[in-house]
């Protein structure tokens, strides 16, 4: 996700001498990636990419915290001032009385912290200009003072806030529970959502749902122009539940993208206090209830213990211990259990690190701390050295795959063929056109196009399509592809087998010649040419890659040279189904003197062949050769 904040907004919390462009550069090198900075009016808008593990930085205060650690490494001043996360406490709210909310939480796993407060005499109107201006720069729609304040604080503190019209909640009763399958609710955007079940919802006690928690409020309890009493809601929810609901309902709201990543329960306090201050100031709201804070399982402090030496081992360079300590404390970690003690550890001693509450989801193992230190120290300050060389043996079958693929590809290229790479997925139509059975293919369940719905079991449908689509672009087309096909296996992953597919728009003999040339190149003698298919003027053949490897001879069989004469004799045959070339050839090679056969001419069905007879140990006579030939 990305968030937009502004430079002036940031300066309210951060004391720094860094310019907006310096900030962009240094933060991007060592922390959140600031994708752009744009000057608008007298302010600068940062567009910042937030990675899914750092939802705490999706806020002005989160970026200020990062800046406090990073900017000093570049010689810039950066210090958090007015840190609301530290300074704002519940005791700064003067509780009121007269109104209350009855809350039943059916399952404590749904809401890790539930905080609410009721305001009266709320005057709905426009929010102050600075809030409107900043919201617009952040890309948030301006609505009214109450809604704007909650959005403003969401961006400032990274905690979504929800407000209900208190008077629209019948009996002022809330039951937090899981939804039943098929339950319906109309959300603020006036969409009727049918719930899949197991979603966190709030019911008013009469069976009516009023909130799809963490995602969007119900329309039936929404703030309107006439709202007088506001129920403020600052909660943290079970992140997996929120994620499941936002995915299954398709309601990908901004609030959901926060809650699904798991928020810091401690930040609820600062947010509640801050929103109260702003509602009092800009909406003349009066607190008329106690603070209802249900926080059953307060998290223990998270502590990591590690040695300084591991930093050098994993980063590869020694970083001074003081630098490590400074980086961590500026990020909000405290070193040693007692924050009042400060940095008292002598050199070389084990490091006790307390993880700040807003990092407990993200920081779990020493490697996480190493990343914090390494990135702020600066990856550009880490040297670059190749690891020591070592020998790892490549399995023979894998080596063969790549060696032979390369050999065949280069050979075919030199024969004049063009290599093509097609998608592994084809359409139903292509399968049927190729005479194959659709049910013998694996199908994609979420294909984005019917053109790429089935995994190929043959390369030929794609190659035929290639030839057809290139018709007219070039007279002679000879294409090949070496790729896997995917043969389904019941209850298991498919068999992934490499094939060599060849397609031409020439003729049978051209394609057969290409295949025979491959066999000659690889010294393959005992493999027959696969079936050559002609379909709509396209000639197609497919070879099994593994059997090429299996039948190949790296070196041809050497025949000693001899000085004896070779007798060449020509003979013409009338070919017919019983007397094909193959039949003649097979008979002819029964002679031990025959060395090879060449085709001289084929005219109609008259086939003239040239026979080469010789012996490696003596001169044979012409008569001997003629006798051999006469046996045919």
């Amino acid at each position, binding site marked *: 996700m990305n968030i937009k904040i502004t430079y002036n907004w940031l300066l309210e919390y951060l004391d720094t001498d860094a310019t907006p462009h310096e900030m962009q550069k240094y933060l991007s090198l060592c922390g959140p990636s600031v994708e752009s900075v744009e000057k608008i009016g007298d302010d600068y808008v940062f567009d910042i990419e937030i990675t899914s593990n750092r939802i705490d930085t999706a806020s002005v205060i989160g970026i200020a915290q990062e800046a406090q650690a990073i900017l000093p490494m570049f010689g810039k001043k950066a210090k958090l001032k007015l840190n609301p996360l530290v300074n704002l406490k519940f005791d700064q709210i003067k509780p009121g009385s007269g109104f209350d909310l009855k809350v039943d939480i059916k399952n404590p796993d749904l809401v890790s912290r539930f905080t609410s407060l009721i305001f009266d005499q709320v005057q709905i109107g426009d929010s102050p200009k600075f809030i409107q201006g900043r919201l617009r720069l952040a890309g948030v729609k301006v609505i009214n003072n109450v809604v704007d304040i909650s959005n403003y604080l969401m961006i400032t503190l990274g905690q979504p806030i929800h407000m209900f019209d208190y008077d629209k909640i019948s009996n002022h009763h809330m039951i937090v529970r899981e939804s039943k399958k098929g339950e319906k609710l109309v959300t603020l955007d006036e969409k009727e959502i049918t719930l899949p079940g197991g979603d966190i919802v709030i019911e008013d006690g009469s069976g009516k749902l009023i909130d799809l928690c963490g995602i969007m409020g119900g329309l039936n309890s929404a703030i309107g122009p006439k709202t007088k009493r506001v129920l403020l809601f600052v909660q943290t929810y079970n992140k997996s539940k929120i994620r499941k609901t936002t995915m299954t309902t398709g309601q990908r709201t901004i609030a959901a993208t926060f809650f699904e990543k798991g928020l810091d329960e401690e930040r609820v306090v600062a947010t509640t206090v801050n929103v109260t201050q702003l509602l009092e100031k800009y909406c003349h709201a009066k607190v008329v209830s106690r603070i209802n804070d249900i926080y059953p399982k307060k998290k223990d402090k998270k502590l990591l213990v590690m040695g300084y030496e591991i930093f050098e081992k994993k980063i590869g360079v020694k970083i001074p211990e003081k630098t490590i300590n400074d980086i961590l404390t500026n990020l909000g970690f405290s070193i040693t259990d007692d924050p009042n003690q400060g940095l008292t550890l002598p050199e070389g001693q084990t490091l006790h690190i307390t993880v700040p509450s807003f990092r407990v989801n993200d920081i779990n193992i020493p490697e996480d701390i190493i*990343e914090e230190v390494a990135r702020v120290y600066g990856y550009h300050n880490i040297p670059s050295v*190749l690891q020591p060389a070592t020998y790892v043996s490549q*399995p023979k079958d894998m080596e063969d795959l790549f060696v032979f693929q390369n050999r065949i590809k280069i050979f075919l290229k030199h024969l004049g063929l063009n290599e093509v790479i097609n*998608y*592994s*997925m084809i359409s139903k139509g292509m399968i049927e056109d190729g005479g194959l059975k659709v049910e013998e293919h694996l199908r994609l369940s979420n294909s984005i*196009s019917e053109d790429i719905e089935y995994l190929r079991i043959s390369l030929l449908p794609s190659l035929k399509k290639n030839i057809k689509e290139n018709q007219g672009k070039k007279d002679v087309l000879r294409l090949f592809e070496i790729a896997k096909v995917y043969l389904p296996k019941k209850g298991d992953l498919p068999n992934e087998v490499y094939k060599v597919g060849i397609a031409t728009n020439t003729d049978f003999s051209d394609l057969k010649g290409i295949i025979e040339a491959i066999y000659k190149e690889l010294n393959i003698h005992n493999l027959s040419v696969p079936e050559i298919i002609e379909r709509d003027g396209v000639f197609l053949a497919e070879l099994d890659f593994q059997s090429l490897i299996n039948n190949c001879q790296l070196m041809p069989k050497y025949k000693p040279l001899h000085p004896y004469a070779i007798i060449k004799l020509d003979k013409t045959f009338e070919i017919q189904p019983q007397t094909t070339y193959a039949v003649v050839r097979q008979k002819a090679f029964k002679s031990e003197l025959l060395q090879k056969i060449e085709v001289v001419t084929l005219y109609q069905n008259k086939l003239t062949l040239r026979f080469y007879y010789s012996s490696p140990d003596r001169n044979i006579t012409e008569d001997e050769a003629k006798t051999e030939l006469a046996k045919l």
Partner: protein
Amino acid sequence: MDSKKYELEINSAKNLVELSELEIKFLGRNGLINDLLSKIKDIPNDEKREYGQKVNELKTEIKKYIEIKKLNVSKQISEEFFDKTMPGKAYPKGSLHIVSLAIEEITKIFEKIGFIRVSYPEVDWEYGAFESLNMPANHPARDDVETSFIDVLAHSTLGKMVLTPHTSNGQNREMKRVGKPPIRMINISKCYRPNWDTTHTPMFHQFEGLCVDKEISIVNLKGTLDYFAEKYFGAGTKTRLRPHHFQFTEPSFEVDISCNNCQGTAKINGVKCKVCKSGWLELGGTGMVHPNVLKEGGIDPSTSSGWAFGFGIERVIMMKYGLDDIRNYYSGDIRFLEQF
């Protein structure tokens, strides 16, 4: 046996082809001379010697006439105008796919520093694509990786069947194959994601590097990236690591390389570089292998560490050669294919 009439016949030959026909006619196995020699059996014994001599003389004469004529014919040819600017005989020129060329180039670069290329399935279980990479089910990080699923029953423990959305499924398989470090793997394969627009094709290629050994640190990852960038993109190419987040690495980085179009200055003659905009181009994701990924592969993270990266082949081709309409790669258009 008057040689004169043969001389005439030989001299009347118009070119080398006719001359070689005559050579066969007179001197070939079934030619005139052999014919005359075979008739020696019909000659009375006392004349045989003289007959044989005469035939041999004739053979010598004919040979001489043919040689002279050959020389003359060749001279004639060379005196005629010969246009040496004409193209030579045409030989076929095929082509390899641009992706094949890049795969070969990349494989060789890594072979030189001891990395072996491996081959692993393109269709895998969710376990291989996600869980083995520290990405449990329902984890938001899975959103970053859109996945194509196969319409078959899910495996009871390994999850649904998917088209691998990255080459990282090779990490766990290679760790298990090798058993214990060292690992030096380069896995190049087709990958699939359900995206199809001007900058995405539903199938693409990645190359994945994995190095696991006793003491591998960020320094070594930087060393390898610098080596690759210089070898593939050219001497002087710089790399830059930026923090990022991936579940399967900790720390995680994005790697940029300096733009060779503007030498990393972001400007050409004072105008903003059109290729990079900032002096840097994003190459892809990398990081130090997460201890959980090592554990899942049966490797003890307390004694071994490693780095991994996964980059797009199409992306590096685009960055190096500026071939930016990726859809042409897989369109099968001969006008595209035959250029390489």
